[in-house]
């Protein structure tokens, strides 16, 4: 057991990735500040990045690294657009509570 602790393998990195993802997910699900939700989304994206790079490293495959670059680029644009939207919302409603925006219902 202890030896597992000290010989770092694929499982360790994946565990960190998973924990990060779950945290991000809980942040998205539970927080009410839209900004924090956006941050949590970044967390999830990064968790996936970690998993990608881990597999790329352990499988000796460069494709994973390339995908990570794509993901980073898209995450950046997503953050930009998301923040623009948040700014717009805040300007119009002076509100960042996600429960305030519940007009999409039947």
């Amino acid at each position: 057991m202890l030896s597992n602790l000290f010989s770092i393998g694929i499982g360790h990195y994946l565990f960190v990735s998973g924990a990060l993802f779950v945290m991000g997910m809980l942040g998205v699900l539970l927080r009410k500040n839209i900004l924090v939700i956006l941050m949590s989304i970044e967390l999830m994206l990064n968790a996936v990045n970690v998993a990608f790079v881990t597999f790329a490293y352990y499988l000796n495959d460069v494709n994973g690294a390339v995908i990570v670059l794509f993901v980073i680029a898209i995450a950046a644009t997503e953050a930009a657009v998301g923040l623009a939207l948040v700014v717009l919302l805040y300007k119009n409603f002076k509100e960042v509570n996600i429960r305030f925006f519940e007009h999409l219902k039947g």
Partner: protein
Amino acid sequence: MAEVVIFYVFSAVTLFGALGVILHPNPIICALHLVATMCGIAGLFFGLNAPFIAAVQLMVYAGAVMVLFLFVVMIFNLKQEGKHIFSPGQFTNGLKVLFGGMFAGLLLSSILFKINNFGYLTPDKAAPQFEVKNIAKVMFTDYVFSFEILGLLLLVIPIGTVALSRVRGGTHAK
């Protein structure tokens, strides 16, 4: 041994940063915690023998994106949210935590029980696969189309962002 230290240090930074993001009531502090997480992740990448990606991670996230976040938070001048940082609704929150936990359990069990399938994998630490040259080769051959599309996206996004957040009448609007 060095990789063990790197792993534990940076994963600790990463996870504590993440916890701070989702638990701290003040969005500014959240953003700062996020910076810490990003740095931790960059360190993990470093430990995974991918220094280029770590560098990109640091530049894009910790540099660009986080600055953007901080700007927005600062512009809003958001104060502490008070006690209720989570959405109301005990039942749904319970469900969220429950299913989140189940998801975590599923992930954990899959890592624990399926990890043996990857046991034979041994990373070739000397291999230069994460060198910039190799990445660029793949990116500009196999992924060139995606790359171009991404370029286009990166062009469109700023325009869209500007269009979204501009004030009607330009900078001279009262």
